């Protein structure tokens, strides 16, 4: 089975801190994604990467950046955390783009970030 591991389940950070969220997948997937999940809203895509060192903005990239130096690792960076970035952050990977018939997303168990 594909395993997507997020380094922290819970994080509490202060406003203005730089925050790193790490994600590692073990199935040699080309594509990796960062989503945030808030109550009453669907998952929203922050950034995705379809190859090492490649990144693309999703729907809500403001206040975030990403890094993909190795195929298996995709990091989300909050340059200066703000309280409106308090959320559940989900990392996902897929072998092919989500538009491919047999390439669903595989998710990690999330990092719940609280910014105070």
């Amino acid at each position, binding site marked *: 089975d594909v395993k997507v591991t997020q380094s922290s389940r819970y994080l509490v950070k202060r406003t203005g801190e730089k925050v790193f969220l790490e994600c590692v997948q073990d199935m040699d997937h080309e594509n990796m994604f960062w989503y945030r999940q808030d109550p009453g809203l669907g998952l929203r895509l922050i950034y995705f990467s379809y190859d090492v060192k490649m990144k693309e903005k999703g729907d809500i990239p403001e206040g975030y950046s990403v890094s993909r130096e190795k195929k298996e690792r995709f990091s989300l960076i909050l340059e200066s955390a703000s309280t409106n970035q308090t959320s559940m952050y989900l990392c996902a990977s897929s072998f092919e783009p*989500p*538009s491919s018939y047999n390439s*669903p997303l595989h998710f*990690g168990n*999330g990092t719940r970030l609280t910014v105070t």
Partner: protein
Amino acid sequence: SQKIEQNSEALNIQEGKTATLTCNYTNYSPAYLQWYRQDPGRGPVFLLLIRENEKEKRKERLKVTFDTTLKQSLFHITASQPADSATYLCALDISRSNYQLIWGAGTKLIIKP
């Protein structure tokens, strides 16, 4: 803009009955739609995908229908069990981009013994 709606209220079903969840969308013609299950404190887990040219897809006790005229997908769990209690998410392909899915907020399903 694209909009995707799932019942925001929890759905309570008696064990053994069929649970039916709804996913409605507007303003687009997706190539396919996916359903995921999410347990508390966990990431979503993929269940089924149905293409626009497929009316119905089955997997064990699960059945998904896709009506592109009504712009609606129905997700059925037959012979429901308490272990089926979870939040179920639908996700819609925006086929102009290979990487973008639009997600519903999910419906919480509670199966009572």
